[in-house]
């Protein structure tokens, strides 16, 4: 999977509390959160908490589903049967992750059709990383290593999210995700160790193109993050965007050295004082341009997704018509 810190939705105002009874319910809700307790689907929850979760979980689900597209591009062109099997398994996982997450969102009282409508109409966002093209086979390895690696950093804290159906989905996803990152690194490692100079250059080129978009996956800097404080209060977000980004940089720079590639950041350097790698400024104008719909592949991705949904409509309708017919037959017998 794939989240970017999902605070790219519209800013919502909290409604004033209406009654004493509701105030008491909210007090108990807050107490349970403070106690590191879990909230289940049928429990009382503030409307703003519910809406925040619907937005975040559905954006996360959409990201899984749209994330299948840049990789699907390479199924027929994977270099060996082994790599083709691995890629198919990974893409199937992404589809599965999307389904776990849609199901978690639906426990909050929103329908699958409503969620998909929001994606297909462009109203809902998905991780902007998928609006970049996969130009070479090395891009598929780099997506596993960097993009899934960043996603794992984002997702592990979500297994302790206060909303239990989301947390349970994330446990399952994180368990499956590790293979995605490892297979990516492995594919790149084979090219770096056994490949030609041209193949090694291809890996470096892919790293150069995906490095900065991967850092953007953690979302805007903490100072500009609109939803972070409330989400932290509610136990939805446990570690800040900048802290996760730093953790990712520290882990990844060492992996790049093992791989034998460089990171395209002239300002990257170990800071003895901080005990972390310093890194150069991120081009947030590019991030907002892509989130706003003007990345290299936004239109293509959404069009492919809508076409798949529309082309499958007759199958869904036929399956449902068949099921209804069988049910009537059974009743008559």
């Amino acid at each position, binding site marked *: 999977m794939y989240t970017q810190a999902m605070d790219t939705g519209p800013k919502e105002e909290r409604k004033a509390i209406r009654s004493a009874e509701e105030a008491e319910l909210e007090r108990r809700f807050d107490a349970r959160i403070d106690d590191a307790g879990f909230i*289940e689907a*049928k*429990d*009382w929850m503030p409307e703003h908490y519910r809406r925040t979760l619907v937005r975040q979980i559905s954006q996360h689900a959409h990201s899984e589903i749209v994330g299948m597209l840049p990789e699907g591009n390479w199924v027929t062109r994977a270099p060996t049967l082994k790599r083709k099997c691995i890629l198919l*398994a990974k893409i*199937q*996982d992404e589809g*599965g992750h999307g*389904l*776990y997450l849609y*199901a978690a969102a*639906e426990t909050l009282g929103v*329908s*699958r*059709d*409503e969620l998909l*409508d929001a994606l297909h109409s462009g109203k809902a966002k998905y991780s902007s990383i998928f609006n970049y093209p996969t130009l070479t086979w090395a891009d598929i390895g780099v997506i596993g290593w960097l993009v899934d690696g960043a996603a794992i950093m984002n997702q592990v804290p979500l297994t302790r999210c206060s909303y239990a159906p989301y947390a*349970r*989905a994330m446990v*399952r996803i994180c368990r*499956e995700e590790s293979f995605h990152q490892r297979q990516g690194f492995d594919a790149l490692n084979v090219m770096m160790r056994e490949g030609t100079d041209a193949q090694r250059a291809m890996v470096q080129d892919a790293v150069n193109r995906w490095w900065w978009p991967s850092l953007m996956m953690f979302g805007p800097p903490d100072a500009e993050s609109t939803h972070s404080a409330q989400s932290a209060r509610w136990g939805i977000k446990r570690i800040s965007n900048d802290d996760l980004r730093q953790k990712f940089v520290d882990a990844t720079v060492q992996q790049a050295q093992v791989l034998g590639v460089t990171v395209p950041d002239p300002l990257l350097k170990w800071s003895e004082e901080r005990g972390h790698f310093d890194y150069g400024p991120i081009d947030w104008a590019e991030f907002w341009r892509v989130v706003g719909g003007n990345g290299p592949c936004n239109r293509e991705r959404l069009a492919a997704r809508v076409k798949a949904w529309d082309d499958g409509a007759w199958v*869904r*309708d036929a*399956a*449902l018509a*068949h*099921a209804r017919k*069988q*049910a009537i037959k059974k009743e008559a017998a």
Partner: protein
Amino acid sequence: MSNETHRNEWPLWEVFVRPKAGLDHKHCGSLHAPDATMAVQMAREVYTRRQEGCSVWVVPSSAITASDPGDKDMLFDPMEDKVYRHPTFYELPDEVNHM
């Protein structure tokens, strides 16, 4: 949401998986499917891609009756003070305490 889209959404099923022979089926999530046969097939694809199970149950979500979370105190708290239901409540002489 229009009635038209709602009418065409596949019904929701709850999925239970038995991890291996000898263990209980355990609830692991839900999915949409047009009928029971398809629900079993899809449960296999969605929830057992890594041999997580050897048997699957699917149940229409609408067929499940659940206790009301609002009744939690009334239903479950009365058991809190019935410590005599547990074997550790009874202090026996050392010689027979393995009983």
